[in-house]
């Protein structure tokens, strides 16, 4: 009886030590993740949380989306400011980006589904443009237009997205999306291909649903 009590005591002690070690380990990883997130707040990048799941962290979160005016593929000027009152998805993409091509049909479908509620997509091409070579520039614009037609992108397709690299920090990789609410604030951002459900969830967030 006495021996069993001793064994039970030792086992309980061991369990307590293990539990403490686990808790301390979890706390440490949590603090490290918080530090990484804080350090990343100054620049946009993928940061792993304490469960090692990467999140796109951008200094634009919960701040007004920087205004811009870009030409669309037909030469018409389009500014973000003119969409105030609407929820907007600013989707940076490029013709050479495979994952962008995967998500484009989802974007087209979601745009059609939520347009009546006041939702619009601005597809901003990050393809390089050679402004010094007019013939090449025409060809490059034609390629973007061809891609947009092929993918049935019936929303505004803007060019020269590279010029937004500074205000929209973190365009190092594509696709990158910023979800802007009706007041013009960034409420969600993603880098890389996620899922249609994820995109829809962020659209609904931008719509205030």
């Amino acid at each position, binding site marked *: 009886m006495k021996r069993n009590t001793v064994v039970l005591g030792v086992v309980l002690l061991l369990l307590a030590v293990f*539990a403490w070690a*686990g808790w301390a*380990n979890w706390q440490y990883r949590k603090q490290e993740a918080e530090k990484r997130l804080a350090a990343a707040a100054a620049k946009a990048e993928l940061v792993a949380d304490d469960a090692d799941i990467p999140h796109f962290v951008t200094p634009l979160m919960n701040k007004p989306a920087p205004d811009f005016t870009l030409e669309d593929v037909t030469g018409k000027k389009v500014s973000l400011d003119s969409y105030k009152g609407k929820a907007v998805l600013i989707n940076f993409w490029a013709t050479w980006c*495979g*994952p962008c091509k*995967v998500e484009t049909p989802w974007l087209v479908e979601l745009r059609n589904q939520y347009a009546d509620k006041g939702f619009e997509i601005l597809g901003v091409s*990050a393809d390089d443009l050679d402004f010094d070579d007019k013939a090449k520039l025409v060809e490059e614009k034609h390629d973007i237009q061809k891609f947009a037609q092929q993918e049935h992108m019936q929303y505004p397709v803007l060019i020269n997205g590279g010029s937004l690299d500074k205000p929209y920090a973190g365009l*190092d990789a594509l696709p990158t999306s910023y979800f802007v609410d009706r007041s013009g604030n960034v409420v969600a951002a993603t880098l890389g291909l996620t899922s249609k459900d994820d995109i829809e969830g962020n659209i609904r967030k931008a719509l205030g649903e």
Partner: protein
Amino acid sequence: MRSLCARRTRTISLCAIVTVSLFAKAQSPLADSSTRTIAHGAPIEYLYPEQVTIAAGKPRPVTLHFRIAPGFHINSHTPKDSFLIPTTFSVPEGSGVRVESAHYPDGADFTLPLDPDTKLSVYSDEFAIDTQLVAEHGNHLVQASLRYQACDKTACLPPKTITVPIDVIGN
């Protein structure tokens, strides 16, 4: 006695399970950081040769070796979609060396997890380009180029050109 041992065995097993559970890192399908390498540095590296000695004025075989960072892939020289950017090797004019021919390896089929129906033609890990170089007499420090466009499973980096430094001695 046997029953006590059995109880101890169960206790030890429980301890082991608790221990493993406590120390195991929480995982998720997205937790594998190798699938999200996009935020990190240059994804491609020229390996060798650093120096080659070839007979001047005649095409001579030189195989160039490259390494791609884990988690990344680049388009092969013959991607399956005209919008995708092929991997190409070039030598600047006036460098004393020219590329007579370049044979690129076939790309491996690759599909994005969220688009299993579309096959891409890519290089990953290591690959080599078999070239025939023609060198003029002398020592030429050639700053050759490799243009590529890299992606991981969910995102792509802009097209890039890296320098491929080769000391070509033509004698």
